[in-house]
């Protein structure tokens, strides 16, 4: 019943010298190619930190909160396409990792979370800093381990990395009691991993029959559209997607997770669609007669009322995870396949059979006119708007920066007014929508890509949630910037209040309700992010005047070190377009 995984480039099974369990963990991590880990120590993980102190092969970055460390590990994984690793002690250290684990689960990010656990003799006895972390995380992990025997550490860590990165990636938890870390042993490092579940070592591939059927559907389509998601990026299938779209002459609308898989400046790009996505992208999917859904999952923020979604279209859904088929949306033609294989093979079939794309000139003319007449837009006022700030940042960085975000209005504007021509440039908590993600994720991103400009476009609410990571940036010399779009409110919730709750403010003002700060009332702005940054030894600047915006952003970009740019914007802007939750394209709000 065992299925062997494919041979890997890792060394053959090897018996190491005697060491303790914590050293076995570190040696196993090194064998998996780990060179950085975000780890906050405590009693139950101290042995692991001692072992990390004995190696120079892994950089250990100390965050200032375990949540920050775990979001940083995710930022690293999302930018580098490799497994991110975070570590915390038992109990409260471990529980602080839960948001990032859930986030990695929702967005299919490879993340290994290692937690210390109390001595195994204390498990189940409500010992100091004990929680059942294995039990607590069951619904949000791809897999998890509670290690009761140090001899199993090499195998478990190898399995964990294989599971995190293979198939549909996801988070894996390894909970290690302190006595297991302290045990003395001669470890046996395996060269391969085996799983009883036959689906794990097996990468599904579409059959030629299925793919030829897809080409037939395309050949007979009049209004085809590609709806592509994060799966394209995690499968490293961007080149295949680009070649496929160009060969078939089909326009591409991505999800937020899929941003950059197809160049947004390409004429075939319809940017991203969904609740706050491009009107033309939403109309295109609504009017299409053939939707090719590639590595995406019909999330409710994409579909709105799912029964009305792409109602005129025949839908092809190619995904590596068969449990995504017909989960949210019944489709005509589900195909279980690694998307890189499916697209690569489609391109081969197209070349081999002199495939002639259908005549879609009328459709493209329609798409082009929608795109021309209804771009992402905003009204310029006397003050800096968030949209304008993002646009200026885009211009000054020539679209080449890595952008991370918190969650809310700014997250949408960072996707609307910055254009991404490459994958792994828009780094955001999308499925879970975890505020506080932006700045720690920017730290991880910068560690993964030290030669790139990394900017957290954040809200004043989200930024405050992990503001302590400024210390990590300063002390670890991680040159990541934060551009705060500061409107003194929880902007997205305010927008919903304005639209659906008669503008009654339900705890959405972040300063003094009686004296709310704004570009017109700068004395009341709260808190003073520049002073806070100063306290952490990080350079900061507040900009209120429109004429200073461009120069201020340039100063941030030119500064050699972390930087906080506090951009004061009015709270009255709404993110548009907007398809209210559960509604349809026909109910899209355009202004």
């Amino acid at each position, binding site marked *: *019943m065992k299925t062997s995984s494919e041979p890997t480039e890792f060394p053959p099974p090897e018996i190491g010298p005697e060491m303790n369990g914590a050293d076995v963990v570190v040696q196993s991590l090194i064998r998996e190619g780990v060179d950085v880990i975000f780890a906050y120590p405590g009693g139950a993980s101290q042995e692991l930190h001692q072992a990390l102190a004995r190696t120079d092969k892994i950089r250990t970055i100390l965050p200032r909160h375990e949540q920050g460390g775990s979001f940083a590990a995710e930022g690293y994984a999302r930018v580098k396409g490799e497994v991110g690793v975070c570590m915390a002690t038992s109990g409260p250290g471990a529980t602080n990792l839960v948001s990032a684990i859930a986030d990695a689960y929702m967005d299919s990010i490879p993340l290994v979370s290692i937690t210390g656990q109390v001595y195994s003799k204390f498990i189940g006895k409500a010992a100091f800093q004990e929680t059942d972390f*294995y*039990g607590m995380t*069951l*619904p949000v992990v*791809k*897999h*998890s381990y*509670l290690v009761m025997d140090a001899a199993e550490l090499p195998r478990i860590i190898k399995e964990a990395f294989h*599971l995190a990165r293979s198939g549909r990636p996801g988070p894996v938890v390894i909970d290690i009691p302190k006595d297991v870390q302290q045990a003395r042993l001669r470890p046996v490092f395996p060269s391969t991993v085996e*799983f*009883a*579940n*036959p*689906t*794990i070592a097996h990468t599904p591939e579409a059959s030629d029959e299925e793919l030829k059927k897809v080409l037939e559907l395309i050949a007979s389509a009049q209004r085809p559209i590609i709806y592509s998601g994060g799966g394209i990026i995690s499968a490293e299938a961007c080149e295949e997607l680009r070649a496929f779209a160009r060969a078939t002459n089909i326009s591409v609308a991505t999800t937020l997770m899929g941003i950059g898989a197809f160049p947004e400046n390409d004429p075939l790009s319809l940017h991203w669609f969904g609740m706050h996505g491009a009107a033309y992208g939403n109309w295109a999917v609504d009017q299409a007669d053939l939707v090719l859904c590639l590595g995406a999952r019909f999330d409710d923020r994409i579909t709105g009322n799912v029964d009305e979604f792409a109602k005129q279209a025949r839908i092809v859904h190619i995904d590596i*995870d*068969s*449990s995504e*088929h*017909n*989960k949210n949306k019944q489709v005509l033609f589900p195909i279980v396949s690694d998307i890189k294989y499916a697209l690569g093979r489609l391109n081969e079939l197209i070349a081999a059979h002199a495939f002639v794309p259908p005549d879609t000139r009328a459709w493209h003319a329609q798409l082009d006119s929608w795109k021309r007449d209804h771009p992402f837009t905003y009204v310029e006022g006397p003050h800096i708007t968030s949209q304008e700030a993002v646009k200026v940042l885009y211009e000054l960085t020539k679209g080449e920066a890595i952008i991370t975000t918190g969650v809310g209005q700014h997250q949408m504007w960072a996707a609307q007014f910055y254009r991404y021509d490459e994958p792994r440039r828009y780094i955001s908590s999308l499925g879970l929508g975890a505020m506080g993600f932006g700045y720690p994720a920017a730290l991880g991103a910068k560690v993964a890509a030290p030669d790139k400009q990394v900017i957290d476009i954040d809200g004043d609410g989200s930024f405050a949630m992990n503001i302590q990571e400024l210390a990590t940036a300063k002390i670890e010399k991680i040159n990541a910037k934060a551009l705060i779009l500061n409107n003194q409110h929880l902007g997205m919730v305010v927008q919903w209040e304005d639209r659906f709750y008669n503008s009654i403010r339900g705890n959405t003002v972040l300063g003094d309700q009686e004296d709310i700060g704004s570009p017109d009332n700068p004395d009341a702005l709260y808190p003073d992010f520049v002073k806070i940054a100063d306290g952490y030894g990080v350079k900061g600047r507040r900009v209120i005047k429109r004429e200073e915006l461009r120069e201020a952003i340039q100063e941030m970009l030119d500064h050699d070190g972390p930087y906080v740019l506090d951009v004061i914007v009015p709270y009255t802007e709404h993110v548009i377009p907007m398809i209210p939750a559960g509604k349809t394209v026909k109910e899209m709000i355009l202004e």
Partner: protein
Amino acid sequence: MRHTISILVENQFGVLARVAGMFSGRGFNIDSLNVAPTHDKAFSRITVVLKGNDSALDLAIKQLRKLVNVVAVTDFEQGQAVLRELLLIKVKANAQTRAEIIQICDIFRAKIVNVAAQEVIVEMTGNKNKVSAFLNLIEPFGILELARTGQLALTR
């Protein structure tokens, strides 16, 4: 609709919690659940009986197949499998009623496995229909306690 699902899993701690969580997290109420090792001690078989919306259950089964410690999942349709359940029933029985209880047990090929002055314990196996018919007949005598394995299933 009522479903009988057989899940072959690795015999490790935590597997049952993962499998049960796949149902509870989706609002399924499990009617019966049985877990025991197979002939190979490295593997256990979990048999679950539950009622639920077919498409929701289909999704849960697809998710079950993804669990690392799950080897195989079968959702049995009518007639595909042999289905059996074992019951232990403690019934009130005195000198007047004992003979009649024994007679009913004989008809259903149930066994009396313990006898006391005022009660007997009966061991009984059968499919769903046989079990409910037997319980209907035994009930009037007064059931004191009842334990059942839940339904077991093997492909024909």
